[in-house]
């Protein structure tokens, strides 16, 4: 037996809440009795707060999806860069080989792994929405990170992995990598990231071929 999804349960809860509230709106006299008062408190206070919390959680989970990030037109070249047919392109190599979850590819790499990393990412997303609709968004090729990419985001997965640890170069500069003295993606080693400016010169992989 398949259980309903959390979203289905949320929609059901929203409808039930609306129905209970509507009952009291149509017949407010039922709140004269004690059970009626309790029903009103549940319908007017408890359930709306519960629904709002669950809906907020759903919205936050949706905002982690790759398709959510790419739904803005300005992100179209970045979405295309995930399909570049060149293993030296770091995002493409990670995305195509499922080294990051493809459904949450953007969020996986562009969220600090600290305790408040997710919160910072969400606040940054709100700022992006503001700029997209009320400000002057830059050209896609002019978009830059707020701060240099932290090696921690790479080492979060790669540190301890055999292929990483067995590389003599990594071993030699390990302290510099962990201390962010040398960047993984801007020190001449893995510098090909999205490169949206030069997409006319690359080939693209089509899934299924």
């Amino acid at each position, binding site marked *: 037996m398949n259980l309903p999804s959390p979203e289905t349960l949320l929609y059901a809860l*929203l409808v039930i809440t609306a129905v209970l509230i509507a009952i009291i709106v149509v017949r407010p006299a039922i709140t004269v009795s004690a059970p009626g008062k309790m029903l009103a408190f549940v319908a007017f206070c408890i359930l709306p707060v519960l629904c709002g919390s669950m809906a907020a959680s759903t919205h936050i989970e949706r905002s982690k999806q790759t398709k959510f990030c790419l739904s803005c037109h300005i992100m179209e070249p970045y979405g295309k860069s995930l399909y570049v047919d060149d293993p030296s392109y770091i995002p493409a190599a990670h995305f195509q080989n499922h080294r990051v979850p493809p459904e949450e590819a953007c969020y996986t790499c562009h969220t600090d792994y600290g305790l408040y990393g997710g919160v910072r990412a969400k606040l940054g997303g709100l700022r992006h929405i503001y700029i997209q609709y009320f400000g002057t968004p830059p050209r896609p090729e002019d978009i830059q990170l707020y701060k240099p990419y932290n090696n921690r985001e790479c080492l979060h997965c790669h540190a301890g992995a055999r292929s990483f640890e067995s590389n003599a170069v990594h071993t030699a500069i390990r302290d510099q990598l962990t201390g962010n003295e040398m960047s993984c993606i801007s020190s001449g080693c893995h510098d090909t990231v999205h490169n949206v400016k030069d997409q006319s010169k690359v080939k693209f992989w089509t899934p299924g071929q």
Partner: protein
Amino acid sequence: MKEIQIERALRISGLLLILGIVVEIISLLWEKPLAFLLFVGVGGALTFVGIVLYLYSLLPPAVESSSQPRPKNS
């Protein structure tokens, strides 16, 4: 009179909450970045005002101070 006021407050509060829930449902069905702003800005505001109005309706009416002096304790 007081009961009529409470019923009126419940109706208004209920309508605001229902509107807020409708906006929340629309924001969940509309899978775009602006949907979150709609959820928080409109749905959240309507729900908040509705709850506050309902809680306000629960407050007892202010008791007028008596003009007669209090009896002294013997």
